[in-house]
């Protein structure tokens, strides 16, 4: 079955987003939502996950805001969602083939469970996985500390390679998320919050205004950079590894459907988990304000690859695509740090060369003392930067009563060191190790300034 993308100039693709609040989690059969409490059939869900021959064991746990719980090492965080559009799955391209240019997402409804997330942990695959504290000083740094977590602790088959290990855990999270959303929607609850999101017109269509002139509203585009540097640094668009894909325009609400998902276990502070993509606040705000005080010109996704040639090609093409949306300005968000600073600066300078204004979102690695250079690459055109904080700054986290996962890895996490453990059981660790603490989609309020 295919649902063709509407032609330019016809009705813009519109999505009704229903958010079902979840106020508590528990284990009991069957899986259902009653009075806001989500009960999960532990045997059914573990059975489903363990039906994958690569999964040796899947253990489930629950963590609630305010509890003395540390979840570590976290791989991904996912918000359960279900598409009510016939033939359109969430996480398109993951469990079935999907070509976004042919099977475009039609107008219709999507449902999400809000207040809860599925969080995957398990033995460490890479150095840069991180932690979530459900209370204490660490809870200040991440929106995830305010969510109910269904935690999947996945052990993979012995002798498995790192790439397969990562993939197995990633798919387990998505399966659990689909299972929960699907089970709840068998008996849809009456209480929900509804919101309508209207995508911008394609440029060139009759309804699409040109660049703001005179009293026109400012036209803003969004360049969405996705980490794509190989194992544990990968991101997928409709099932395709974005490092293999040139930059492209996307329908902004595709993000709601999980079209962009994280295969990214690094770096904890500034990787975008799947949750972050599903709820990208830049995309959502531009969609909400579209047609009011601004025009949302559209969204381009691009990658952050490992060769100079790829970086140059991607940034040139991304700048062309952004320019084709005829915006007055563009927001550019980065993912990760270090060499992606080079991608960020190329994107910025090449877009500014088209006469389009840029604002960049980036975190900083200014050293623990804050005395060092924050970015490894710069450009004079990068004169409008929003800082999401210095990820090297050290915070002290007291011990938690309960650990979900394995906290022995804490000294080897990026941001930790052999000196991390303090005599009283606390750990002194860089914000780098806290999931989402310096998120560059701008979820958090943390920033940095000169003292």
């Amino acid at each position: 079955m295919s649902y063709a993308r509407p032609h330019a100039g016809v009705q813009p693709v519109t999505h009704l987003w229903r958010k079902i609040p979840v106020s508590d989690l528990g284990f009991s059969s069957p899986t259902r939502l009653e009075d806001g409490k989500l009960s999960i059939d532990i045997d059914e869900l573990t059975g489903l996950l363990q039906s994958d021959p690569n999964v040796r064991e899947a253990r489930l746990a629950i963590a609630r805001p305010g509890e003395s719980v540390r979840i570590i090492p976290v791989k991904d965080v996912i918000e359960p969602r279900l598409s009510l559009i016939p033939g359109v799955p969430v996480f398109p391209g993951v469990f079935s083939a999907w070509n976004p240019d042919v099977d475009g997402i039609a107008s219709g409804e999507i449902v999400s469970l809000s207040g809860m997330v599925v969080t995957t942990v398990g033995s460490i695959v890479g150095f840069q996985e991180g932690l979530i504290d459900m209370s204490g000083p660490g809870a200040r740094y991440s929106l995830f500390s305010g969510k109910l977590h269904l935690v999947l602790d996945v052990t993979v088959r012995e002798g498995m390679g790192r790439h397969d290990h990562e993939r197995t855990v990633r798919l387990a999270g998505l399966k659990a998320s689909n299972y929960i959303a699907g089970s709840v929607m068998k008996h849809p609850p009456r209480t929900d919050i509804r919101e309508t999101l209207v995508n911008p017109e394609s440029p060139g269509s009759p309804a699409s205004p040109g660049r703001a002139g005179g009293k026109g509203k400012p036209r803003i585009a969004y360049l969405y950079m996705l980490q794509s540097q190989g194992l544990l640094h990968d991101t997928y668009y409709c099932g395709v590894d974005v490092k293999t894909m040139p930059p492209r325009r996307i329908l902004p609400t595709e993000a709601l459907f999980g079209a962009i998902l994280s295969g990214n276990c690094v770096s904890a502070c500034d990787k975008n988990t799947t949750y972050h993509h599903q709820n990208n606040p830049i995309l959502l705000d531009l969609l909400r304000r579209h047609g009011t005080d601004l025009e949302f010109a559209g969204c381009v996704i691009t990658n952050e690859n490992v060769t100079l040639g790829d970086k140059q090609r991607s940034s040139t093409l991304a700048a062309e695509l952004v320019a084709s949306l005829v915006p007055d300005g563009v927001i550019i968000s980065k993912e990760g740090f270090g060499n992606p600073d080079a991608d960020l600066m190329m994107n910025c300078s090449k877009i500014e060369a088209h006469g389009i204004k840029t604002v960049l979102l980036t975190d900083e690695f200014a050293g623990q003392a804050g005395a060092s250079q924050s970015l490894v690459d710069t450009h004079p055109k990068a004169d409008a930067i929003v800082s999401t904080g210095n990820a090297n700054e050290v915070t002290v986290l007291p011990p938690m009563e309960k650990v979900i996962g394995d906290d022995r890895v804490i000294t080897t996490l990026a941001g930790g060191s052999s000196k991390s453990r303090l005599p009283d059981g606390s750990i002194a660790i860089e914000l780098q190790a806290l999931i989402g603490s310096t998120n560059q989609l701008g979820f958090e309020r943390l920033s940095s300034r000169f003292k």
Partner: protein
Amino acid sequence: MGAVSRNGKYRIVHYLNQFFGGVGGEEKADCRPFTIKGPQGPGRLLEKLFREGNADVEIVATVVCGDSYFAENQESVLREWIPVIREHRPDLVVAGPAFNAGRYGMACGAICSTLEPLGIPAVTAMFKENPGVDQYRKTALIVESANTVSGMEDAVRKMVRLGIKRLHGEEIESPQAEGCFEQGIRRNYLHADPAWRRAIDMLLRKIGGEPFETEYPIPFFDRVEPRPALPGLKGITIALVTSGGIVPTGNPDHIESSSASKFGKYSLEGLESADATTHQSAHGGYDTTYVNADPNRVLPIDVFRELEREMGFKPHPWYYATVGNGTSVDNAQKFAKEIAVELIRDGVQAVILTST
């Protein structure tokens, strides 16, 4: 607030050079350090203005040292005199003002920067072109003063205002607002708005031609003059250095996968190549699958050996490695300086640096 003196006053130790300490001018600049009980010279004004600001202080001691003597013996002066200052159990140490006196400014900066990590608050004052400002602004609170002694009262007033806050244990959030030089240190804080909203607001202002303030001003990186070319390779000692984290298997020095706090020095003696059993990557910032399978992909030991035989250069028997992932530029500089000292000592004439 800490220990106060016998009569309940805040205890201050004041540092002065030979001139303000009453010893003499430049001809006495080699004067060795000594202590005077109570205030001396500008110390009297300092006490008076503290009291006018309702801070009951007492300068319990004044330490005086000649500018040249300090400059030539900085390490030993600090080693011997910081404990002397601590013995006075000061609640605050004031150094200077140094105005535009370069060696005096360097001394004031060094003293304040040494005391701060020991938990002893310190303040000093200098003219903006004093070399002590550039050297110590990150590690000391330096009040901006005029360039000559005519600005004494103004400088002391500012030091007193800042000093009172420090005596009260107040965190100095914005040194600039206190009349100090910005320290150039990045410090996190919670903004009232999430970053996504600030980004969209900033862009609307930029598009509208309204003033906006970047949250991270792009710094200027300095440059180094290129070294002259090697005349040839015959007999030249060349060292391998890498930021790609190649270490002997097991990472014996526990170099961190990110924000490395150290570098390692490892032998190349007798090695014709590196493989999965001898070396690994400790780097956390890239997919290490390929380099763990063949470490030569980051540290080219195999071809280095081949080219050694063909071209006649001498490989340095040690290589240096660190992890350039989230490692601050300051740390990288520090490692490089330490490595360079050893390389020069060992007669290395050129370096091949590999990075991921």
